[in-house]
């Protein structure tokens, strides 16, 4: 039985690709055969985050248009044999993703993969709509910030009305909230929306809270999903989120400001 998961947000720059890469790597390392598909046609970046940008020969649109078959376009991750990447095309044609084409490819992938992660582009255009249309589950990535929360609510509305499950009156897409760039100090000082604030507004299952962490940037610089950095707070939080996704009960961590010792307070650091 395979599951199609869309990683979406509406707003750009909140961490969708970072999340797709880390959740995908986490599921694969837990032994589940996983593929991550980049739906950002014209602006592909998953390949860079996954460190396979120089191995792209064929892409998603080549497969839809019949210029290549799936096995030629799928890139096997060098760090984890259960993880594959399907890169986006750099074409400018926004309508290259057709419902039939995407549906056929996803159906073929369900024969081989346990988890199919659709990394959505920002916005609510064709690419974003196609990324969420076939989803069984959705991970909505949200920053504790007004425009991101509003856009997330908008995307939740689209999941509830325009997805395949909604159109066919099936059981609705299972929604999960993933809060990224959480800053415990700023929440404590009253200058950032808290988890409870966001929960009060969006009211969906909380999959995880990823703290603001410099290792997110260093990991992407090096082409490693941040979940592989097992000492970083972001990496550990993604690992927790993967565990919860797989049904484990794991308490949320890193929600309170780090209490600095007297030496740190005197000398900084």
């Amino acid at each position, binding site marked *: 039985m395979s599951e199609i998961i869309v990683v979406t947000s509406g707003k750009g720059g909140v961490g969708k690709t970072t999340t797709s890469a880390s959740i995908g790597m986490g599921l694969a390392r837990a032994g589940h055969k996983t593929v991550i598909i980049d739906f950002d046609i014209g602006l592909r970046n998953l390949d860079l985050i996954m460190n396979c940008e120089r191995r792209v020969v064929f892409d998603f649109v080549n497969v839809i248009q019949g210029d290549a078959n799936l096995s030629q376009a799928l890139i096997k991750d060098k760090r984890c044999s259960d993880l594959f990447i399907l890169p986006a095309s750099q074409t400018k044609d926004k309508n290259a993703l057709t419902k039939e084409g995407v549906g056929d490819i996803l159906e073929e992938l369900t024969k081989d993969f346990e988890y199919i992660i659709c990394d959505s582009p920002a916005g609510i255009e064709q690419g974003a709509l196609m990324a969420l249309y076939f989803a069984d589950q959705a991970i909505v990535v949200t920053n504790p*910030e007004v425009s991101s929360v509003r856009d997330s609510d908008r995307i939740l*509305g689209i999941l509830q009305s325009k997805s395949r499950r909604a159109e066919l009156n099936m059981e609705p897409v299972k929604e999960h909230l993933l809060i990224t760039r959480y800053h415990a100090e700023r929440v404590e000082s*009253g*200058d950032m*929306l808290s988890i409870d604030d966001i929960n009060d507004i969006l009211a969906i299952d909380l999959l995880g809270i990823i703290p603001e962490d410099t290792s997110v940037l260093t990991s992407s610089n090096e082409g490693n999903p941040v979940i592989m950095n097992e000492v970083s707070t972001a990496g550990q939080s993604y690992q927790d989120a993967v565990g919860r996704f797989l049904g484990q009960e794991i308490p949320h961590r890193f929600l309170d400001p780090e209490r600095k010792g007297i030496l740190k307070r005197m000398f900084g650091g």
Partner: protein
Amino acid sequence: MSLFGRFKDTKPKSARVAKERLQIIVAHERNRRSAPSYLSALQNDILAVVKKYVDIDADQIHIHVSQKNNTSVLEMNVSLPE
């Protein structure tokens, strides 16, 4: 008021302002999503009729559809100028 309370900033924290603004706009947008598609056209027509007699702006007309048991209630609120 306690001694320390005096020094507290009385201005509401920005996160609280953010939450209040979000609650209002999100509720408004959810209502609009669940509203029938003819509602905005109806609102424009009503506005045009009222404008024939009184000078009002679009934001002075509020139309709201709610569900009560098996009936839909269409509620219209027009604020007339003094």
